[in-house]
């Protein structure tokens, strides 16, 4: 009986997931597409919980659904396509242009063929592969990793290179965004209800972020989830009318964006000097080093995602002195 209930749950989750994905792509109004995508992310977080992956479920809800959704909705603000009233008949905008039907069919056939090949490979791998996979190896060495949450152990210790490079990817994306132009326009100052809500939510979010960072060592959580929660606090501040989204100015902001890569690299190089392999933590110090790296990574991820929501180079990126030096009106006014 229990088995049947679970299979029904699985079938229901998968149907809703695929249905939402289909509706996201087929919706006529882009705004509705984005909202459906957020709903899709939340259902996907449930799927992750079902697949015994609570760390991923937290990240999907906070980043995949929450922050991606916020970024896409903010981008829709300056999308001309979204400007018209949805109740009006759809104008023939380029977005509604369709591919010629022959190309469309060929494309569908190609994707279907690819899907069948991947299905064959997946079923083959699932039936042949060692059912233990890598879990046994991780569990055998986890006492040496300094943490007891296996996902954190893999992310920060066993496969630390991946996470270091991931922080570098995040930094590269941030530099790209900053290089592409100034920030998007800010939002109107919040009314009393939103301002009051922000006053309640932001301290709670910062506390939750700190908790997730700390608890990640032995339970679901960690730097990514904590950083995403901090970024969510910044998004709320910006929506409530603070252009700078609560971020610091000048050098402090630059240091914050660099913190993750810098501390990670610094720890790795210090270990190299101490005669250990790069990022090869000694078991007695591993817990402390991982917490130090994760704290810096949390701040960097929070600042990077917040700057991504700001959408470009904010005024606060340069220090007040630099801004004065760059601003031509200031130079002209000087005696």
């Amino acid at each position, binding site marked *: 009986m229990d088995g049947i209930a679970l*299979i029904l749950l*699985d079938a229901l989750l*998968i149907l809703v*997931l*695929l249905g939402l*994905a289909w509706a996201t*792509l087929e919706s006529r109004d882009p705004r509705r597409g984005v909202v459906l995508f957020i709903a899709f992310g939340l259902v996907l977080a449930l*799927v*992750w919980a*079902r*697949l015994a*992956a609570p760390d*991923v479920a937290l*990240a999907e809800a906070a*980043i*995949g659904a929450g*922050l*991606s959704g916020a970024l*896409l909705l903010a*981008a*829709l603000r300056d*999308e001309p*396509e979204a400007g018209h009233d949805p109740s009006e008949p759809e104008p023939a905008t380029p*977005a509604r242009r369709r591919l010629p039907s022959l190309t469309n069919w060929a*494309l569908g056939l190609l*994707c279907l063929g*690819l*899907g069948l090949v*991947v299905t064959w490979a*997946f*079923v083959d791998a*699932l039936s042949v592969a060692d*059912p*233990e*996979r*890598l*879990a046994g190896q*991780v*569990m055998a060495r986890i006492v040496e990793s300094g943490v007891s949450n*296996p*996902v954190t*152990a*893999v*992310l920060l210790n066993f*496969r630390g290179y991946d996470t270091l490079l*991931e922080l570098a*990817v995040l930094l590269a*994306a*941030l530099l*790209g*965004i900053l290089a*592409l*132009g100034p920030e998007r326009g800010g939002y109107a100052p919040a009314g009393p209800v939103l301002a009051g809500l922000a006053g309640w939510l932001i301290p709670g979010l910062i506390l939750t972020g700190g908790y997730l960072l700390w608890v990640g060592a032995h339970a679901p959580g960690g730097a*990514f989830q904590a950083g995403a929660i901090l970024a969510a606090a910044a998004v709320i501040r910006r929506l409530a009318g603070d252009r700078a989204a609560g971020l610091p100015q000048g050098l402090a902001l630059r240091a914050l964006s660099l913190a993750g890569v810098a501390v990670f690299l610094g720890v790795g190089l210090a270990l190299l000097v101490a005669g250990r392999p790069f990022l090869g933590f000694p078991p007695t110090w591993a817990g402390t080093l991982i917490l130090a790296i994760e704290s810096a990574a949390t701040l960097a991820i929070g600042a*990077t*995602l917040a700057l*991504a*929501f700001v*959408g*470009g180079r904010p005024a606060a990126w340069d220090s007040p002195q630099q801004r004065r030096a760059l601003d031509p009106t200031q130079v002209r006014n000087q005696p």
Partner: protein
Amino acid sequence: MTTALLYGLAGIGLAVLGLRGSLAQVSLLRRLLALNLMGSGVFLMLGAVAYRGPGLPPDPVPQALVLTGIVVAVSATALALALGRRLRETQDHD
């Protein structure tokens, strides 16, 4: 086993749906949505491989890969949106 297969197939379905969308859609925003759906499908395949049945601890390595992937996906989305805005600004000037 059945659960892993079921969710793995759902992941493949999502990836195919997303791939088709990212190639067939015209507007940048829809393409980005489709690419994100495709990424989610690939993550779901990895998650299905990591699942080892009720009562057994899942394989943490694919789960860590998915976590990394989610963060990379959001940074790529943010960069693509910034590129799209810049592209529109330069076109508007013409």
